[in-house]
């Protein structure tokens, strides 16, 4: 058993009043990371990122879910302290992947990978040198057939194999009335003979889990399983926590027996850390609009009764703080990490609209909330350079080039399962008082076609004002863009500038 730690020094000298704002630069394109989380309705959630060293050089590789597209494992080729560089491999090229978690399942010293999918989940055994084999069958793991959207693992007392909890979402076959169709979560416990897994136990009732975490919330030495559930789809549901006593069937915490307090949110992600430094874990739960920050009220009572300190500490993160969109936010992956090495944990939240939800922000920047000396937080995402308007889902805050400074890798969703080049869209561009329409087509000419940069001459104008009417009829906002620039236009996202070379 081992832990790898890095002790990092402060990135700059702070004043007492303000935390140091770290600086991030977007190296996505240059680094070689090119996978997007793709797909239609059945991939509206998911988009996980896994970072782990499978090459043995202690530098984390990056695995990115691809949704309807292929997933990819990227080998870390970054020089220590240098520019981020990755080599794309086909080592874990699977379809229908929503997320993944690295875990040395068989305790052989090589990390394995738990892959959550639309359909059958898989356990990939690490063979060394970033090669893997599907060990699901060999380990007696029933991957099932569901929309798997959450995961947690723990070694229960006395066990040499882990217990895996897998959260599942709604029944994807339900079309007109999918609400209330949440399918069972599963608990894969070790097989009785001590190798591999027993058939999964259903964690009934299940309420469309989007995050799970084993956590010793009361320092009892007996971790419980927290489950954050999406209220959009459950009926009669709420946030959950399960007792997981050794050898006993999982048992739900209840209001009557345990003092569990009902909470119903669009639960999407759990981040845990002892922010208040009271010796107990605190929990940040992402949702839509206000997020929750739960602090155990009184450990002496033994009851899991939490106060919500999100408002008081300034981490409700309920709406965009930059970019001009004032609609409420949608939070996904959240992670506490000390991004400025000042000894205080900060909070990163990946944000992004579910898909065409006009009640919520379309331009929804990720948050980087720096912890102040008094335990409150200050938003610094825009100043730090992480206020991306991409449609974020999963993420990891991790030191990718081992320079002692944390980096951030975020999986953004691209809803382009079909028609990736927007054939049938129309670009409208203002020409003085007139509007010129350009249809994006495939055809015409004489058996010759092109997909790629669209060229618009502007004459003496320094800017162009245009909008896109997408193939589904959605009218994008009018945008004013500079002359002489390359711009990538994506539906529901801000234009992204690009430079050749």
């Amino acid at each position: 058993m081992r832990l790898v730690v890095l002790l990092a020094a402060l990135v700059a000298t702070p004043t007492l009043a303000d935390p140091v704002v770290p600086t991030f630069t977007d190296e996505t394109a240059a680094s070689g990371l090119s996978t997007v989380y793709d797909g239609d309705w059945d991939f509206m959630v998911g988009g996980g990122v896994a970072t782990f060293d499978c090459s043995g050089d202690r530098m984390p590789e990056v695995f990115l879910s691809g949704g309807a597209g292929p997933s990819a494992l990227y080998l870390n080729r970054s020089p220590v302290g240098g520019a981020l560089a990755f080599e794309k491999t086909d080592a874990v090229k699977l379809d229908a992947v929503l997320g993944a978690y690295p875990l040395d399942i068989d305790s052989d010293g090589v990390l394995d990978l738990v892959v959550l999918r639309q359909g059958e989940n898989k356990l990939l055994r690490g063979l060394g040198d970033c090669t893997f084999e599907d060990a699901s069958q060999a380990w007696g793991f029933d991957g099932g057939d569901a929309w798997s959207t959450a995961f947690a693992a723990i070694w229960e007392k006395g066990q040499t194999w882990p217990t895996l909890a897998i959260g599942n979402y709604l029944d994807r076959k339900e079309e007109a009335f999918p609400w209330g169709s949440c399918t069972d979560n599963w608990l894969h416990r070790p097989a009785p003979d001590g190798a591999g897994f027993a058939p999964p136990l259903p964690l009934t009732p299940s309420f469309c889990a989007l995050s799970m975490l084993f956590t010793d919330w009361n320092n009892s030495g007996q971790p419980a399983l927290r489950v954050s559930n999406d209220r959009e789809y459950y009926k009669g549901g709420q946030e959950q926590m399960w007792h997981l006593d050794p050898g006993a069937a999982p048992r739900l915490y209840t209001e009557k027996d345990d003092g569990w307090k009902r909470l119903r949110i669009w639960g999407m992600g759990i981040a845990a850390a002892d922010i208040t430094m009271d010796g107990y874990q605190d929990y940040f739960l992402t949702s839509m609009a206000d997020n929750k920050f739960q602090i155990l009220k009184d450990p002496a009572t033994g009851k899991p009764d939490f106060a919500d300190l999100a408002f008081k500490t300034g981490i409700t993160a309920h709406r965009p703080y930059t970019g001009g969109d004032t609609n409420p936010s949608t939070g996904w992956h959240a992670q506490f990490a000390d991004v400025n090495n000042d000894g205080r944990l900060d909070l990163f939240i990946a944000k992004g609209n579910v898909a065409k939800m006009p009640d919520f922000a379309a331009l929804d920047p990720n948050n980087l909330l720096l912890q102040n000396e008094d335990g409150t937080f200050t938003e610094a995402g825009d100043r730090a350079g992480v206020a991306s308007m991409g449609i974020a889902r999963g993420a990891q805050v991790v030191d990718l080039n081992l320079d002692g400074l944390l980096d951030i890798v975020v999986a953004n969703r691209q809803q382009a399962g079909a028609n990736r080049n927007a054939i049938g869209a129309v670009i409208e561009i203002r020409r003085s008082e007139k509007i010129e329409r350009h249809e994006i087509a495939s055809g015409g000419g004489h058996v010759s076609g092109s997909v790629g940069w669209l060229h618009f001459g502007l004459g003496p104008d320094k800017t162009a004002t245009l909008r896109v009417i997408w193939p589904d009829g959605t009218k994008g906002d009018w945008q004013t863009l500079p002359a002489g620039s390359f711009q990538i236009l994506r539906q529901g996202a801000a234009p992204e500038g690009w430079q050749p070379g």
Partner: protein
Amino acid sequence: MLNRRQILALPLLALAHPAMAADRADVSRKVILTWHKLILELVRHTATYTPPVAARAFAYVGITAHEALTSGNPALRSLAGQVTDLSPLPARPDGAFDEPCVIHSALQAAVAELFVNTGPTGQRAMEAMGRQMGEMASEGIDSGTVDRSVAHGQAIAEHILAWSRVDGGAVIENMGFPMEYTPGTRPQDWVPTNLIRLQQAPLLPDWAKNRPFAMPSADADDPGPHPDYDETPGSAFHSAALEVCETGRSLTDAQKLIARFWSDDPMLTPTPAGHWISIVLQIAERDALPAEVISSTLAKLGVAQADAFISCWATKFRYNLLRPVTYIKRHIDKTWEPLLITPPFPEYTSGHSTQSGAASTVLTAVFGDDFAFDDETHVDEGLPVRSFPSFAAAAEEAAMSRLYGGIHFRFGNAKGLEQGRAVGAYAAALRTEA
């Protein structure tokens, strides 16, 4: 009021070919009921659909169904000229029409616009419903009739949607919470009751400016002021707060159940208005009500509830009264907590009481004083079926539930019921038969 004979006789007025028409009548019923079941889900899953907004949508969908049927049935009367600013609906052009196709296309178009803000799953559900209901409605009908019927249904819907777009309630921003809000300075003024940033301003403070449907104005049925605000123990106001506090401390399981049964929280249920819509849908299934009765009842009920919220919101922001939890924590017991989550807007009068009073008035007018029914609206949520001897009894329980839940004073519930009954009378007086 309709008795059973009248209910059963109504569709016969429209039948040219009884055998086939009876089958088509069943299809019409199914179209209306299924679309309404879907919108109960869409209300729950569309963030803008707080109770007043939901009630407005229910009204327009109900009116759409009624007008679609009325355009082909001389036994029915249009609401044009009866509800505010609704002009005569498009007449049917020459040719044959199929009622289920007309109703389906009208509802499909109306729901698509009224629920445009729903998320990807709601959009997917609407598409699936449109496809499934469209195939069912048009099966065995010649294409010319289908096309003509669909076009007419869409024309009916567009007429009503155009009317809806200018009522003041069509655009909801920030889930109904103003970006800026200056709280009152009097001790009795409403203050936020939770730590949700979005809800530090009250919900929809301008909702009373919306165009009413059947009542003459938002202020027409103001119930008058609440008991004088007073912090003195023994005063009427203090006693009312003490009652909420002590009731909350000693709730029985039966009272807790009542509070939760009528809680009808937005984004977790179809809202209070949807609860009453659900009751009508259940009765319609149980009693096999004909399409004409279902649609006219839903139209009147929707009108009553939408007006009730406009009226109630006018009262709420006129008096701007604090919630029991605020008063109790300040003056009686700072540790006290209500059973239910306190809604983020002023107390007086109770919205659920007002719209339940309005709903019960309409439904009593349609079905009668002692019309018993079972209510299984929340069975999927794990709550049991409740039985009521009358609509009035259900409304009174709904009002009392707010006291059990710790979110309203008794006087807010009682005055809300009175206000709702007065508002509901306007909708009950609408003529839906020729």
